């Protein structure tokens, strides 16, 4: 294995240039170095102006998502040695506006996330004196896989529908909505359905399935969206056949 590998990093400096361009950096390539280690090496030793997001280095914070050789990846979980002899192309996440170098604009995703009410909605809160809302292991299993989302936005980057129509609410927001719908303590499914049944909600998805493939936490947003569609269609049929019961 070569001792070094070339990182081909997309650079965009808005005060200097209107297009992004690639710059090559030689970085060490020990077997335990991930792409993020390579970027940190560049920042520390070669060019301190390189900008990118990162925090935990252990696949939890969801900050360091980038395109590695065109694939959306968490750079803290993507080993350089797997790309030897290189070069390794590192670009900002696709489908998002780039602020600088590898840093993308998050505002669109954050506002979509809050639209789906990603918290437990109760019609009436029970008093503290009645104790906690208890849940069985089976009830936990219903939503646990969807609760693993770390908001890394790799699914948005992989989704061609979001690329073509930025108003589409997107895979993670729908998966997180489903996480709360399936929670036995939650009573907000109807409110969320109203939001997600809109034009730019679940029906925007054409089931490409890439969101599920790139998810580093195995959340399966594509499944969440299709189940939502099924539920929405059943609700509609119920409303037509049994209008009173559906109310």
């Amino acid at each position, binding site marked *: 294995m070569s001792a070094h590998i070339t990182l081909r990093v997309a650079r965009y400096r808005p005060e200097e240039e209107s297009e992004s361009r690639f710059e090559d950096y030689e970085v060490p390539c020990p077997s335990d170095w991930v792409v993020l280690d390579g970027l940190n090496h560049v920042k520390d030793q070669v060019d301190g102006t390189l900008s990118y997001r990162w925090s935990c280095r252990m696949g939890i914070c969801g900050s360091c998502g980038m395109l590695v050789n065109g694939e959306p990846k968490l750079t803290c979980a993507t080993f350089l040695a797997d790309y030897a002899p290189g070069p390794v192309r590192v670009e900002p996440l696709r489908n998002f506006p780039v602020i600088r170098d590898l840093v993308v*604009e998050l505002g*669109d995703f954050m506002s979509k996330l809050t639209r789906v009410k990603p918290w437990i909605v109760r019609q009436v809160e029970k008093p503290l004196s009645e104790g906690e809302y208890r849940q069985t292991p089976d009830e936990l299993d219903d939503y646990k896989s969807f609760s693993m989302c770390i908001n890394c936005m790799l699914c948005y980057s992989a989704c061609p529908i979001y*690329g073509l129509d930025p108003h589409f609410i997107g895979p993670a927001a729908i998966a997180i909505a489903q996480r709360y719908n399936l929670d036995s303590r939650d009573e907000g499914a109807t409110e969320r359905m109203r939001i997600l049944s809109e034009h730019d909600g679940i029906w925007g998805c054409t089931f490409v399935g890439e969101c599920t493939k790139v998810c580093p936490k195995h959340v399966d947003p594509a499944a969440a969206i299709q189940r939502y569609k099924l539920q929405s269609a059943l609700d509609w049929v119920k409303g037509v056949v049994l209008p009173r019961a559906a109310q």
Partner: protein
Amino acid sequence: MNRNAAYTPYHPRWHRQRVSTYWWLERRSYFLFILREVSSVAVGWFVALLLLLVRALSGGAAGYQDFLEWTRHPVVLALNIGSFAFVCLHAVTWFNLAPQAMVVRVAGTRVPGWMIAASNYAALATTTTVVVALLLLRW
């Protein structure tokens, strides 16, 4: 959070990459997805063919013979062979995706995904067997 700070398409300093018209050729999975979407046209064609057959049958034996002659034309034959390939792709891809969309519980236990896909294939096999049997028995 300020909702107005969401998507601001005309921010002058942000760099945006245009999505290419040919984005679906950039990755194998995107290309397969587009093939699956296009396969709906083949499904539509077979529905139209069935309706044309029904119309031909209403014209009696002569009408039916004319219809058969028409389907033997090389262009129609090629179209039907191509459409059949697309319909097979349509069936296989959707059957394989069905477990993602359906959560079926039997006695409180979730039915594994492969069983949901297998039940789709079993339904297809059963229907095909019945149709072939009807044809062989010349009902």
